[in-house]
């Protein structure tokens, strides 16, 4: 029973990391894409710049996916040994960092991206400033990702 529970918790952890971080990015990119399409309807020559700004809140989903993937290759689904109950809990706990951190920073970065897009639409020279400001939000997703990551890669060695 413990083995099944451990596996379940690990897979739940992979799901939490991928899905919640994905929600953050989906909402962020979605909002940014709506705004950038508004801009492109006026001036389609800015497509490249708009694409970059729109994609900036997309990294959280990727971080979530990486954590989810690393859990899967460490818990017996895509390789590695089946986790114990304790390891299952550890995987789930680790995934909460990027899950929640990614989701909320995704929302925040999406809002920043929308403002950056409007700013760039007014004057194309603002592009690099907008990009820099939007990327500043990124660090918080990155920190959450690293906490998740450090736990996930060390779980297989833990005797719990």
């Amino acid at each position, binding site marked *: 029973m413990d083995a099944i529970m451990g596996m379940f918790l690990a897979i739940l952890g992979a799901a939490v990391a991928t899905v919640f971080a994905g929600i953050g990015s989906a909402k962020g990119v979605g909002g940014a894409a709506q705004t950038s399409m508004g801009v492109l309807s006026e001036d389609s020559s800015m497509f490249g710049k708009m694409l970059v700004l729109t994609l900036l809140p997309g990294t959280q989903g990727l971080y979530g996916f*990486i954590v989810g993937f690393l859990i899967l290759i460490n818990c017996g689904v895509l390789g590695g040994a089946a986790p114990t109950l304790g390891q299952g809990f550890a995987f789930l706990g680790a995934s909460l960092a990027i899950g929640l951190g990614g989701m909320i920073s995704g929302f925040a970065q999406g809002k920043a991206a929308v403002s950056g897009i409007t700013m760039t639409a007014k004057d194309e020279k603002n592009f690099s400033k907008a990009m820099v400001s939007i990327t500043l939000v990124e660090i918080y997703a990155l920190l959450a990702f690293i906490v998740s990551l450090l736990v996930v890669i060390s779980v297989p060695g833990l005797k719990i």
Partner: protein
Amino acid sequence: MKAVRIIALKKDRKRVLEHLQDSALVMVRHLEQSDEGFHRADTTAQLKQFERNAELTEQALRILNRHQPEKKGMLASFKGRKEIDPDEIGRIATDSAKIVGICQKLIRLEKQLADYAAEQIRIRTLLAQLEPWKKLDIPLNTRETATTAVLIGTLPRMYDDVSLAEALAEECPALTFEAEILYASSAMTCLVLFAPKKQREDAEKALRSLGFAQPVNPTSRTPSVKMQRQIKKGEDLELKIEQAKQDILSYTDYREAICETQDYFNLRAEKYRVIAELDQTDHVFVLHGYIPEEDCGKLEKLCERTADCVVEFEDADEDAPIKLKNNKFAEPAQSIVSMYSTPSHEDIDPTPLLAFFFYFFFGMMFSDAGYGLLLVIGTAILIKVFKPDKKMRNNLKLFQYCGVSTMLWGLAFGSIFGDAPAMIYKMITGNAITMKELLPWPTLDTQKDALFIMILSIALGLVHILVGMGCKFYVCWKRKEYAKALFDTGLWMLMLIGFAVLAAGMASLPVLIYVGGGIAVASAVGLILTQGRGKKNIFGKLLGGVASLYDITSYISDLLSYSRLLALGLTTGVMAQVFNMLSTLFGTSVFGIILMILVFVAGHAVTIALNALGSYVHTMRLQYVEMFSKFYEGGGKPFEPFSLKSKHFKTKGSNED
């Protein structure tokens, strides 16, 4: 920087100005008032004319682009401007009248197109209005025949023959009529009603109470004839529109000429802007400007060659602009400094320091030998193939140097496209191996040695901050503000060094704990004694001193900020490894290998794009927020010489910036 005065005869004005503009040596100085005895020329009219013409060409280019977008490659933005011979400007000038004519023609054609489009909409609306009346074979404005009243119009509901007869009978039982329903929908019924002439009023009254309305634009022709005419008109319009579009397209060959002419107008406008700044008498003019010291000789020679003129140099004043000048290593980083702010006269030029740390930190964050190599090769190819303008070339150079540093850090972290070599080794031999074992030199593993790299990051941050504070110390010392240098900066530097020694002591030699602790305590006492020195009474002095110790929190948060060096380095490595792992999931069949290559390339492309951007931004942040805040004030005026500010071409051998 030197202030310069060029005095020459008015008859040489054109030649002198053109040579100055071409050489881009001098920045014209704006003086509110002319010297006594001189006057300024009013060039507003000419300036307006050139600006208007430039605007015309801009509109024409926009029209051309709308109808036939210019074919540009993905990498076209790297391309440098076209080089032309300075003598060609004369030719462009002679052709400019013709080009302006073409631009005006283009604008006229575009306006015609807009009118045609409006006309088309009008026709379409009219046709839609007439559609329900198609079956009517008498003109819409028929009112009566010899004996019969004719009422044509709409009712706001749906009726058929029976329900209409019932509704009318209810309103006016005595009415005798004949009605024909031409069109019926839920919103509207179009009908024609015949009644004896003497019952006209009854019929009108009955219909009106049902909501009867006459058609909006009755005409004397039957609806079908009218519709046919409109359709014919529409077809003619199509042809005209097609013709106008063809006409516009026939001018696409002039695109380049229009671009050149636009540049010509802009540089003429620039010249007239300068003429308005000149101090003039009837025979002589004086130009006030600034020039970098090293260019003074060049200017003298240039003026000697051009005309009889006097060039006088003197030391520049407070308002003089700043031109950054650096060696090849640091020059690419100038754009990073300018993005923050141009240094003022009080500042030292931070570019060389910034350049070193920028390359260094970028490499540590991006930290992959494979990616670094790609950066170096990619930028080298772009520079070679596209021959970009100076600004773009410097940006590419910046990434090239960053690429070198990335390669070195990648080798130190044992990361070459993540763990790609180890993966390939495993695929061939079947034995798992880590990069640490595979590489012949000692490496740091970002994942296993994360704590050590974290400490390393913060130690490097300490060095970075100390260098920044050292600059502040130097600047204050040079300004002879010794108290500021020694107490406000020096003591804090000592304090940070004390803590660093203390930390080193805790890790290794216990004796260093006392040394470091001693330094820290001594500097803290020093701070308490000196930081309140602006206050009047003894309590204020002490209180100010103690309160200043609170600044330690800002230094700690600055230092912790450098943990992003680890964070970004770790992310690059892990993302690369995950994509390597993904690409090996498909087995070793032919199909599997193809998928592997695809996933490998796409995955690493994503990793490079995300992490290069992240590394760039966060390196910049470390420079701006952590280092510049320690000493850099900025707020200087950048040196913008009087030059050919052209968008599309540059003249051969010009001193472009």
